[in-house]
């Protein structure tokens, strides 16, 4: 089995108790240098150290083109020859921006540090010189031997050496890895089990000197390849010998493990992906816009500089007052200097204030999310949290929602809701589980509550010994399973590999058939208070192909019975001919399916002694066969046994969805958000959930991988797709409704997909036409791959939502990651941009907060660009009349205060308070959400229109004043204040027309801003300030005169009104035209709901399945009769004798 070392590529080595060996090779780093091989077990997700904070944060900040640009401006302004505006006008805001951001980064980093420290300082027991001592996680290293006790989180990837349980089995919960809450078993190698299990084990463990040779650290969670070299022998290692970091040890007293991978080498850490800073799309558009504007400004400045050179040349030739003013008498040099001066002068078109304000608004929007009572989850006392404060507007543009299943859509709580025994349905599936009135089960000492079914008649039948079928039904439930019972406080607590089984066994317990305990060869069940011991002869395990499991037991009376449960399709075809109640059972299945319940059929067969003997012999023969052959043989053999079944009944289990999930998905789909479900769970479960959470319509056709591959391979995928879509439809209904198709595929299939990157575009094209997509059995890395695929081939915003560590990667990869803060805090939230407590909160987060944020920020950006450009571009036109000399048309203080004081507050109010429709209406009309997806408000076209309007405004501002002041006695300073006044009026008028939601603050902001202009002008033009610093406040007395001059006022008013005329007219025309439109939206909305509900009732497909963990069921561990794998070969003699009579 074991290959040669050189061939196997097992280059990673972990030496047991080899602390010295490994610490010497530990990974270390200094600045950017790294050496060493083995990572320490400490997690470092923080970025800064005290030494590196300042350089790193500055480096990061100046990575932003905008900051660099502003720095350049400051530098330019410090050069006296070209400084058209004093340096402090830009410097002070820049410093504020830099320090605010640095502070924010620092705070975030501190939080990460604290988080890391909490993880790193968790304790576990390490074997140090013959005894276990408590150590912190961060001090572990490869080669250490650990003792993990029950319910402890495993601190690193371990090789299981032995455990306190028989055969060194142990159970782990992998919820944080793959989202499955059922228990998985792991088993130590037989040799380590035998040699290391002794009391006390410290001595044996300390002497253990095995060497693990395996693959280099990688991100494959379900694969481990390597071998253990010990005592001259080489043992093959597989995934089942490995305990992964992040899993939790359950049901096992102690487990001893050898650290193989630690810290960042752990498989789960390798799956986490890189920490990436996400920037919103709007910000990217903004950045592009900024670059565009800056380039335009550079070009304009160049043209103006050329103009200056020409003008200077002309002046030089003449003898006039200006000729001496040409720099060094060289027009070209003059033009060169003026170029830089114009860059400075035009730079306010792109003010720093934009970025500060942008950040402030984002922060406030994020706070609104945290403050929202409707996003507050009372039972957990947890409000929503926006952890990344720069993505709010993206929430209003989401096109794809990629959701995890377990813990996100479902609660992973399965409830036994109904059953059908002998054709009779008990329980009512249409009542919500919470509203079911509990039955009186006080007669049953083992009852622990939690049965959400009300069927008093059934109880009476059971207790009255009237109905043998129902008694047998529950006996089957109590016997046919792989559940383990653990005794706590006089009652059995069930530990099941599958939550379905737990629900079934639990239901049987409530109704009097209590599974008490099992040994290798018998099961003890208390039937209505009387204990019976059933001899377990064989356990025919579940596989995803068989879709059923059976147990063969010898009843206390001596009769042989086979109890079988499985998917309806499988069981129904194995029934005896003309079995009774078949028709009524079919109806029951239909009823259960309509109620979105998961069904299993339960059947029994009385096995004749002779056939058992024969079958047993064949089984024993099978057991010694080679693996591949054996499996098919076994399947055949099982199939032989599971024939001629007698139907007992049907169970109906509700996979509890999180509250409000179907409604939320329904609403999001109406908002044209594509919902994809990515789950590590198996296909049947996922599809089932898909139906019950309204993700899949009952009449939707499921397009599976085989079909999809054919379509993708065909010459014209589009045509094939249409064909595939219609085929099913024409077969089932004559209606000409558009066919609904959903894609379902699994992780391994996706792997095939990855090899053919050219399919990506076609696939996305098809997926866009599908209702939804279900991806099952995907690893965390694959989840991220899918997100990447969507991101690559569409330009829609993607959002990932999940709750476990397995979702971290996809949460990080998507544009927006949402972590559902479930029962356990979890890593998902740590890495998410938004943390919610419930899936249903997405409704309000997206449709209300997202939509509002998007609108507000779009308005804000457009308005901001408008106001700054319109005011700064005036200098271009003025240049034509002052010899392109980069003379400012404004007082420097006006330039400094315009964006900060005179126009900032109103637009802030809009960006904070604006609501076009109320939160309730937003939720009622999900159609409104589409404007964000299509970028109706923030698209390049809209931004260009705003810029065009700004250019027009600057023309108006200048030329109206020009016309008035041309050839008059008005001086430059009066003109400056007039244009400034007009600019302020224009900006205020524009915001007034933009504001649709006038709170008191809006009104105050507008009034105060305008008044501020007058007050600040009077202040900066006052004699007091002039006397302090004449050259900074040389506009002395201008406003005093100008504000009393009717011409100044009339000019400013005229210019302002002319400037806003286009936008006012546009709004007016929209008001005139739009009125009927609103009406339309209202009238069409309810119709779609009705339509879809009509379709729902048409032909619900039956959904019968059984959710167990990946791969084969755990049956072989429970009953080794069917197991021949090496791991179980060395079970103790006694059990081997009973379970393998032939051997």
């Amino acid at each position, binding site marked *: 089995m074991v290959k040669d070392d050189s061939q196997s590529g097992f280059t990673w080595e972990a030496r047991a108790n080899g602390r010295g060996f490994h610490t010497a090779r530990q990974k270390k780093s200094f600045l950017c240098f790294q050496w060493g091989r083995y990572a320490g077990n400490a997690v470092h997700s923080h970025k800064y150290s005290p030494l590196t904070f300042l350089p790193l944060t500055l480096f990061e900040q100046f990575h932003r083109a905008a900051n660099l640009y502003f720095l350049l401006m400051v530098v330019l302004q410090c050069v006296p020859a070209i400084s058209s505006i004093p340096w402090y006008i830009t410097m002070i805001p820049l410093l504020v921006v830099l320090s605010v951001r640095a502070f924010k980064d620092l705070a975030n980093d501190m939080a990460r540090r604290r988080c890391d420290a909490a993880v790193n300082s968790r304790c576990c027991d390490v074997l140090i010189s013959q005894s276990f001592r408590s150590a912190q996680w961060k001090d572990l290293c490869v080669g250490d031997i650990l003792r993990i006790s029950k319910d402890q989180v495993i601190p690193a990837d371990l090789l299981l050496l032995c455990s306190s349980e028989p055969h060194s089995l142990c159970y782990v919960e992998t919820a944080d890895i793959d989202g499955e809450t059922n228990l998985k078993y792991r088993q130590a190698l037989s040799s380590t089990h035998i040699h290391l299990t002794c009391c006390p084990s410290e001595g044996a463990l300390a002497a253990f000197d095995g060497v693990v040779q395996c693959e280099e650290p990688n991100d494959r969670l379900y694969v481990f390849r390597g071998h253990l070299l010990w005592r001259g022998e080489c043992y093959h290692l597989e995934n089942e010998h490995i305990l992964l970091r992040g899993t939790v040890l359950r049901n096992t007293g102690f487990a001893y493990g050898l650290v193989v991978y630690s810290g960042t080498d752990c498989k789960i850490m390798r799956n986490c992906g890189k920490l990436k800073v996400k920037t919103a799309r709007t910000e990217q558009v903004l950045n592009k816009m900024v670059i565009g504007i800056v380039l335009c400004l550079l070009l304009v400045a160049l043209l103006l500089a050329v103009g200056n050179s020409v003008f200077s040349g002309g002046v030089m030739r*003449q*003898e*006039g*007052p200006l000729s*001496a*003013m040409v*720099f060094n008498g060289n027009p070209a040099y003059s033009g060169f200097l003026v170029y830089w001066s114009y860059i400075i002068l035009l730079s306010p078109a792109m003010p720093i204030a934009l970025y500060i304000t942008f950040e402030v608004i984002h922060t406030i929007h994020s706070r*609104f999310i945290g*403050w*929202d*009572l409707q996003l*507050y989850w009372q039972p957990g*006392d*947890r409000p929503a949290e926006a952890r990344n404060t720069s993505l709010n507007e993206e929430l209003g543009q989401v096109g794809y929602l990629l959701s995890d299943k377990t813990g996100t859509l479902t609660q992973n709580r399965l409830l036994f809701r109904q059953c059908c025994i002998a054709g009779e349905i008990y329980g009512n599936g249409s009542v919500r589980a919470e509203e079911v009135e509990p039955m009186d089960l006080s007669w049953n000492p083992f009852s622990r509550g939690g049965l959400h079914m009300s069927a008093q008649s059934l109880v009476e039948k059971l207790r009255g010994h009237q109905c043998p079928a129902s008694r047998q039904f529950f006996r089957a439930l109590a016997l046919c399973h792989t559940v383990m019972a653990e005794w706590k406080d006089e009652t059995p607590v069930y530990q099941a590999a599958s939550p379905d089984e737990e629900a079934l066994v639990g239901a049987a317990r409530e109704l009097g058939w209590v599974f008490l305990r099992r040994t290798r060869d018998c099961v003890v069940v208390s039937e209505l208070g009387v204990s019976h011991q059933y001899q377990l002869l064989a356990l025919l395990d579940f596989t995803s192909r068989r879709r059923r499991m059976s147990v063969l037991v010898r009843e206390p009376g001596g009769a042989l019975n086979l109890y079988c449960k499985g998917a309806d399709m499988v069981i129904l075809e194995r029934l005896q001919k003309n079995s009774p109640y078949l028709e009524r059972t079919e109806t029951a299945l239909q009823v259960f399916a309509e109620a979105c319940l998961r069904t299993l059929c339960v059947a029994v067969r009385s096995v004749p002694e002779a056939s058992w003997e024969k079958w047993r012999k064949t089984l024993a023969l099978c057991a010694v066969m080679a693996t591949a052959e054996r499996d098919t043989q076994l399947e055949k053999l099982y199939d032989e046994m599971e024939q001629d079944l007698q139907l007992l009944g049907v169970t109906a289990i509700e996979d509890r969805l999180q509250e409000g999930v179907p409604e939320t998905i329904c609403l999001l789909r109406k908002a044209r958000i594509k919902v994809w479900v990515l789950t590590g769970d198996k296909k049947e479960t996922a599809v089932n959930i898909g139906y019950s959470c309204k993700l899949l319509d009952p009449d939707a056709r499921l397009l599976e991988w085989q079909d999809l591959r054919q379509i993708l391979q065909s010459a014209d995928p589009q045509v094939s797709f249409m064909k595939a879509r219609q085929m099913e439809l024409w077969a089932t209904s004559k209606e000409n409704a558009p066919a609904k198709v959903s894609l379902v595929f699994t992780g391994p299939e996706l792997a095939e997909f990855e090899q053919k990157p050219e399919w990506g575009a076609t696939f996305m094209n098809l997926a866009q036409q599908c209702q939804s997509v279900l991806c099952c059995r995907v690893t965390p890395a694959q989840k991220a791959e899918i997100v990447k695929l969507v991101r690559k081939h569409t330009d829609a915003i993607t959002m990932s939502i999940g709750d476990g560590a397995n979702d971290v990667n996809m949460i990080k990869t998507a544009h927006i990651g949402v972590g559902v803060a479930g029962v356990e805090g979890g890593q998902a939230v740590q890495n998410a941009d938004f943390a919610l407590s419930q899936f249903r909160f997405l409704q309000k987060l997206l449709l209300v907060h997202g939509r*509002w944020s998007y609108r507000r920020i779009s308005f804000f950006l457009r308005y901001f660009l408008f106001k700054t450009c319109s005011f700064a571009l005036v200098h271009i036109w003025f240049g034509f009349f*002052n010899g392109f*000399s*980069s*003379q*400012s048309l404004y007082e420097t203080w006006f330039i400094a205060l315009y964006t900060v004081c005179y126009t900032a507050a109103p637009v802030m109010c809009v960006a904070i*308070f604006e*609501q076009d429709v109320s*939160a309730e209406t937003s939720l009622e009309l999900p159609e409104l959400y589409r404007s964000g997806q299509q970028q109706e408000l923030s698209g390049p076209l809209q931004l260009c229109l705003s810029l065009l309007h700004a250019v027009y405004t600057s023309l108006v501002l200048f030329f*109206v004043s020009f*016309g*008035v*002041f*041309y*050839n*008059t*006695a008005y*001086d*430059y*300073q009066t*003109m400056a204040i007039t244009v400034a006044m007009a600019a302020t009026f224009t900006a205020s008028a524009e915001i007034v027309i933009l504001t*649709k*939601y*006038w709170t*008191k603050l*809006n009104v105050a902001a507008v009034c105060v801003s305008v008044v501020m202009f007058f007050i600040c002008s009077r202040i900066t033009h006052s*004699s007091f300030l*002039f*006397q302090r610093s*004449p050259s900074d406040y*040389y506009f*002395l*007395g201008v406003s005093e005169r100008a504000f009393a001059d*009717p*011409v100044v006022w*009339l*000019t400013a008013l*005229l210019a302002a*009104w002319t400037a806003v*005329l286009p936008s006012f007219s546009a709004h*007016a025309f*929209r*008001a*005139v035209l739009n*009125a*009927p439109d609103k009406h339309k939206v209202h009238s069409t909305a309810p119709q779609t709901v009705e339509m879809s509900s009509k379709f729902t009732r048409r032909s619900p497909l039956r959904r019968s399945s059984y959710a167990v963990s990946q791969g084969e069921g755990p049956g072989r561990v429970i009953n080794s009769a069917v197991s021949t794998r090496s791991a179980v070969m060395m079970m103790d003699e006694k059990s081997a004798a009973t379970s393998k009579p032939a051997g």
Partner: protein
Amino acid sequence: MTTMKEEGNYANRPSNTAFTQQRLPAWQPMLSAGVVIPGFLLIGLAFIGIGVGLLITSRSIQVLELDYTGTETSSPCYQCTMSNQSNCVCKLSFSIGTLFKGPVFFYYGLTNYFQNQRKYGVSKDFNQLIGDVSYFKSPSSDCQPYQRVNGKPIVPCGAIANSMFNDTFKLYQIINGKEELVPFDGKGIAWWTDYNIKYRNPDYTPLKNAFNDTEKPVFWTKPAYELDTSDASNNGFINQDFLVWMRRAALPNFRKLYRRITEGNYKDGLPAGNYSLEISYNYPVISFEGTKKVTFSNVSWMGGQNEFLGIAYLVIGSMCVVMSVVMLIVYAKFRFPEED
């Protein structure tokens, strides 16, 4: 009681205020055709009204503009442009048909003169001009190239001061062939703040002493302390003509107030008749293709004549009215079929 108790346990519960829940009371005006169309109409009418008022006012203002650059040979000032003769005097004759109502403002005007050029504009020293003698010795570097001459600092330094307009005018009314001097009032033509705060003479008597070891601007014929030797309150940096010149013009074509005619017989204006303007022609403008002119104008509430403003108001006002009509048509066309 239970709710009270529960409230206490939920430490993280967001507060339920109108602000945090985004339910601030607000006025949500809906723009509708009923508001928009009359609104535009009203604004349009208001603008037309203002425009008409402005135009009427502007038309009522009398303006007399005379170019005396002397580029044409027929111009009386032609000979002054010929050579570099100093103290060239030329006389411009004109007549006024009807009474030019007073008070009459007398302006000089320049064209193609870029007083708003940046380097020109910053070329002065505020500290010198507020009378700080320490800056007399070391003028600001902004004054370059009029900072120093012959190693001595220039006071007042800088291009603006240096290029001060130095033509002077005398107006005579010709009554029965005799020239009668029309008295000019040169007081208060500069801004109050300029005269009282922005420009101050150094506290020296005589003023001349403050200017020791300094040079007059190179283009000037006499130093600053001799601008008006007759009146100490009009001398030095607070000379009204100097102040008017120092207040930079907005655009390359401008006028600046020279004198007012408010005294004596001419209190009510310039009566009809023949006049002669004696110009001492010093200021060169031909070299940069500029022109010089003088303007007589009376003023109204809106200052001098300004047709542009009135016309612009009329145009914009009419546009608004047209817009409202268009909107009405659109409204009628698109709205009513919908409701049928």
